[in-house]
């Protein structure tokens, strides 16, 4: 496969960049720099009640028009609330992508897979391009495929924890078994972890905190872009198999100490 043909298809979109960027914890004025440096084509936003007392600037005004906006359903505690948030987000006129996020656990912010499957079924039927955030569970991922998910987004580690690919064994299984794109969402704190995910064959990664809390978010966004590209190329190149013992890189013949007897 030539590099030029290596595109990621989700819904009706064909993406060149396999790095999705979350806009949480980022000052609006950093968004253009972060988006440019990351090369991303998909960014997430959240929907909240407007605050009359301290009106905030709309992050969308800082995001170039060609970027796909993927609102999340954060704040939803069940499928019905997630569907309500998704419909409100779509009414804002930013397209029909939605990241399902249903959370009831406040310590680890783990997604509620059961409610997420329900929400995916409801919203896929209404024409949304649904990307559910999930615990990496093969059975659930298959149900999500059946329910019409456009991709699945399993976590690497808890949201915002910067702990990397703690769930790698289960992510590997999803990549092997699931036909829709697998996008690692949550937990990736460093470019090396993003590269590892891509080397494993993940279709994309979504990074927010790893960029947003960096000393220089714009520089970090660029570092993630390179790591995702490098990891993807390594995957396409076909990494060698890890072995327990040495395998000489140099020829094992013609040594200077050899004497014929």
């Amino acid at each position, binding site marked *: 496969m030539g590099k030029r043909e290596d595109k990621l298809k989700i819904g009706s979109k064909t993406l060149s960049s396999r790095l999705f960027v*979350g*806009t*949480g*914890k*980022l000052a*609006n004025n950093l968004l253009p720099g972060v988006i440019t440096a990351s090369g991303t084509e998909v960014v*997430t*936003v*959240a*929907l*909240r*009640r*407007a605050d*009359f007392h301290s*009106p*905030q600037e*709309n*992050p*969308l005004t800082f995001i170039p028009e060609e970027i796909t*906006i993927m*609102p*999340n359903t*954060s704040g939803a505690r069940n499928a019905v609330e997630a569907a*309500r948030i998704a*419909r*409100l*987000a779509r*009414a*804002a*006129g*930013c397209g029909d992508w939605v990241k399902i996020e249903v959370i009831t656990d406040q310590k680890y912010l783990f997604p509620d897979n059961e409610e997420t499957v329900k929400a995916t079924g409801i919203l896929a039927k209404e024409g949304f391009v649904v990307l559910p955030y999930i615990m990496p569970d093969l059975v659930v991922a298959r149900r999500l495929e059946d329910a019409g998910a456009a991709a699945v987004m399993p976590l690497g580690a808890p*949201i*915002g924890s910067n702990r990397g690919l703690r769930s790698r064994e289960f992510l590997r299984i999803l990549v092997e078994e699931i036909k829709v794109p697998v996008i690692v969402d*949550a937990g990736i704190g460093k470019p090396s972890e993003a590269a590892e995910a891509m080397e494993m064959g993940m279709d994309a990664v*979504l990074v*927010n*905190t790893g960029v947003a809390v960096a000393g220089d978010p714009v520089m970090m966004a660029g570092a993630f872009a390179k790591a995702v590209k490098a990891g993807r190329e390594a995957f396409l190149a076909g990494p060698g198999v890890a072995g327990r013992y040495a395998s000489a890189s140099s020829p094992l013949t013609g040594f200077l100490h050899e004497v014929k007897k």
Partner: protein
Amino acid sequence: MEVYVNGQPEAINPGETVKDFVVRKGLFEEKVVVEYNGRILDGKEMEKQFLEEGAVVEIVHFVGGG
């Protein structure tokens, strides 16, 4: 007259529409979405819908999020 906007009681002016209220609160320039008694309103509906006693209104907008 009172309505509930984003979970708070709000006094409204007689004959005030949803759009009037949004503008009065300084939110018109922002991209807000309004849900009126559980129903999402488009721009035209916001202009037509008068605020009725006890109505439950949600006015939401996008913020940064992951």
